[in-house]
């Protein structure tokens, strides 16, 4: 296979799954031309006058959509680990003897492990989306027939819009829908909050199926999935397992070490002046991020400041900031707990805001680049601040990219991470898999010190002499290795098992088969 060194110095193939690909050219360097991809023209004459698109089963809907070999089937991940719909699609396809499908989810979860048998029997050729846990292991061991393609949430929308991925059938689980296919996520027994990740799917797929367990009278309002894009509606007993869709309550970390990191992060944000009146911010749902949100709230309160804007995934902690008057608005792409679901339904300043606009490379502007504070994680960071979020130091693919790459465009990208996890150091000479270029990562905060990217001279200047434990990544790495020892490197074969796309659709790195 022909390979080339891309602009990040990584050796990548020029062809993946039989299609030619563009190697990474540098940040903001790839500017495609032409028009966006468009699906077939539908005509309302082909749809029932009474607006009732309900068919008897998912099988019938798939049949009517012309399910056949080699199609690309998309799903969204708003039901998270409680998703009962995705596996069902491939059970039906397998029973019908359909082969070589491409599954194009916005993310996968441990509940999708049963799909391995459909990868084994040839029903599914490959997955283009995130690879979590068991699926990742399967891919790393070289067992998947096609090559996996990992994209960020924004990269997924980019791939749909520029025609890199053509969705044949979008199967969209919807907690509430009417018979026309207008659907929303805020109510119903499987409520998941918003449905933002489904937007590109219903707009660009050739055929769209809405699957619901809560059919209501027309109109379902406010709808996030618009019925005029929908071909069929299927009613099933259950689309999801509620307690696995939304955690009853998200909790801040109890780990003293992580609380220390959170405390240090809040202190850094305050002393650097990044945290200020009118700040805009995004923090995830991990225990450390939640603790940071709580500490930030305290600082805002003490100073009489307000955040003008928080970008979700939201949790009760962000909702509390909104309700306590410490935050003016929450824009939300996904909600993580019940308090956040309730809030987005009832609070007019808590607004669903799809990734379509926030993360997408082909949008005319990007919300994340307007964020002052961006709190992110990583499995590895190398001495040049390059980040890895998909593989572990042992070389196994275990996570998806999520919105991580898109969020790197924020003004201040802060990575609070423990220096080592159960003897596994986080700071390495060179990341196993490159997911984000170091020039976009500003600060790494560990329990043993803070490393600021030398490119951020302004930040270095602003925190000088303020009592923060500033270190270089090299010093932190040395300290970790003194404690843990120097790890061996994982051994790989030449075979490429997964491609890592940058936000613009170019290939920034690949994952190779574990030896």
């Amino acid at each position, binding site marked *: 296979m022909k390979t080339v060194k891309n602009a990040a110095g990584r050796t990548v193939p020029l062809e993946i799954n039989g299609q030619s690909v563009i190697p990474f050219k540098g940040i903001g360097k790839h500017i495609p031309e032409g028009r966006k991809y468009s699906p077939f023209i539908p005509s309302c004459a082909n749809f029932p006058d009474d607006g009732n698109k309900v068919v008897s089963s998912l099988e019938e809907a798939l049949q009517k959509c012309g399910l056949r070999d080699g199609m690309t089937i998309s799903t969204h991940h708003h039901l998270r680990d409680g998703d009962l719909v995705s596996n069902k699609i491939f059970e039906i396809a397998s029973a019908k003897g359909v082969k070589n499908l491409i599954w194009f989810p916005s993310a996968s979860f441990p509940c999708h492990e049963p799909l391995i048998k459909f990868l084994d029997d040839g029903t599914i050729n490959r997955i283009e989306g995130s690879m979590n846990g068991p699926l990742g292991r399967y891919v790393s061991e070289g067992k998947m027939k096609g090559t996996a393609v990992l994209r960020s949430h924004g990269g997924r929308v980019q791939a749909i819009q520029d025609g890199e991925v053509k969705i044949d059938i979008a199967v969209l689980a919807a907690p509430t829908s009417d018979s026309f296919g207008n659907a929303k996520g805020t109510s119903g027994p499987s409520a998941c909050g918003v449905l933002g990740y489904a937007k590109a799917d219903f707009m660009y797929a050739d055929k769209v199926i809405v699957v619901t367990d809560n059919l209501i009278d027309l109109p379902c309002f406010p709808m996030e999935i618009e019925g005029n894009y929908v071909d069929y509606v299927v009613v099933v007993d259950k689309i999801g397992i509620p307690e696995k869709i939304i955690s009853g309550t998200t909790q801040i970390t109890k780990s*003293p*070490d992580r*609380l*220390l990191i959170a405390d240090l992060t809040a202190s850094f944000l305050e002393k650097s002046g990044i945290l200020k009146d009118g700040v805009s911010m995004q923090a995830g749902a991990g225990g450390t991020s939640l603790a940071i949100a709580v500490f930030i709230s305290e600082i805002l309160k003490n100073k009489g400041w307000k955040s003008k804007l928080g970008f979700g995934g939201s949790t009760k902690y962000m909702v509390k900031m909104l309700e306590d008057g410490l935050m003016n608005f929450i824009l939300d792409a996904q909600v993580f707990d019940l308090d956040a679901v309730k809030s987005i339904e009832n609070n007019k300043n808590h607004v669903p805001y799809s990734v379509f606009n926030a993360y997408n490379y082909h949008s005319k502007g990007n919300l994340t680049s307007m964020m002052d504070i961006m709190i992110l994680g990583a499995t590895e960071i190398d001495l040049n601040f390059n980040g890895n979020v998909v593989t572990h*130091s*042992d*070389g196994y693919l275990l996570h998806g990219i999520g919105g991580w790459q898109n969020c790197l465009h924020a003004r201040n990208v802060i990575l609070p991470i423990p220096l080592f*996890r*159960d*003897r*596994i150091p986080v700071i390495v000479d060179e990341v196993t898999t490159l997911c984000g270029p170091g020039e976009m990562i500003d600060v790494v905060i560990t*329990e*043993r010190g803070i490393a600021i990217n030398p490119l951020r001279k302004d930040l270095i200047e602003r925190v000088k002499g303020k009592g923060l434990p500033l270190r270089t990544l090299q010093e932190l790495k040395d300290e970790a290795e003194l*404690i*843990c*020892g120097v*790890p*061996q490197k*994982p051994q790989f074969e030449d075979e490429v098992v997964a491609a890592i796309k940058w936000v613009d659709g170019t290939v920034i790195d690949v994952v190779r088969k574990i030896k």
Partner: protein
Amino acid sequence: MKNSAAISGNSGPKVRSDCEIALELKSDGGIFIDLISKVKSLYGDSIVSLTKEVLDFFGIKHAFVKITDSGALPFVIEARLESVVKQLISTQQEYLPPHLKENNYSTERHRFRFSRLYLPGNTPGLMINSGLHSADGIILDLEDSVAPGKKDEARLLVRNALRQINFYGAERMVRINQGKRGLEDLHFVIPHNVNLVLIPKCEDAEDILQVEKMIESIKMKFNLNNDVFLMPIIESALGLENSFKIANSSKSIVAIAIGLEDFTADLGIQRTIDGKESLYARQRLIIAAKAAGIQPIDSVFSDVADMEALKLTVKESKSLGFEGMGCIHPRQIPLIREGFAPDATEIEKSKKIVLAFEEAKQKGFGVVALGSKMIDPPVVARAQRVIDLAVCLNRLSPDWVKDE
């Protein structure tokens, strides 16, 4: 006759940074190592070579070793290996990991001991980052937090931890066991730069003298001249009755603590949140300590989740005269530090008193007055102590007089 198979350490889904090692001595066939580890692809080779090195050190040529590893650091693996070996063969040899040069510091008799963090002596996962939480002292506990069957292996782990973990300046403390086992414990800790030894369930000055004698003999043997301070813990009615004698029994004693769980059990009463049942005991201990010129230290507060109650307890403790408290979780540390440190009003008041004193001295006045109130010398001395403390805790600039 010793057995031919032994086991040491911990494994299981919740165990982190530890390993379980099973060793079976064989008569031939060399060393066979079965390693199950979540970090095998990163450290597998080094774990195997370390294992061979340790076994070779003890002269073991033929054995079957099963290691179930959850990310244990080398010093932990070494302690677990030494422990299984010593269950099977008699040897005086010790496999010592390098002693970090960062761990060579000594401490002062009068340093603050507001917060001291208890760490179970056989749980390495809790030790590794313990120095990061700014406790005044770290206690590696060989006593009540270690299961009876695990006490021998804990000694080796604590010994290795003292050599290998950087506690970032926290006072390095070990709580030994009671009685004869406690005296034996000292052999495993004293040669490795312990700053302070906690002696549990003290009832008599003789308990202290025995420990002191043993420490002296070990120091002599290893030619050590660092200070090893002592902190007796009073945990019974008899101990309390003898508390002044105990507090005064050795010049190495720098503090005396009360252990209320055992104390209330000894009295056959329930320990309550407001602690009325132990008020007399605590006050008596404080007076014994003050009379002996050492620090009185309060019992641990055992409900980690109840931070509000801890806050009230600290406030009361400080008002009674205690100068510190044990912590069983790092999250208690900031609250306890905060609670025992002088607050803003106290600092302001003390500044006024000290300034008035300086002014009187300059003017050659015999009496110090603040407004219309006369101030006695002990009040000035106490104010000076508060100021020193505030400066030491970065709550007051050392040049504060100039700023006034």
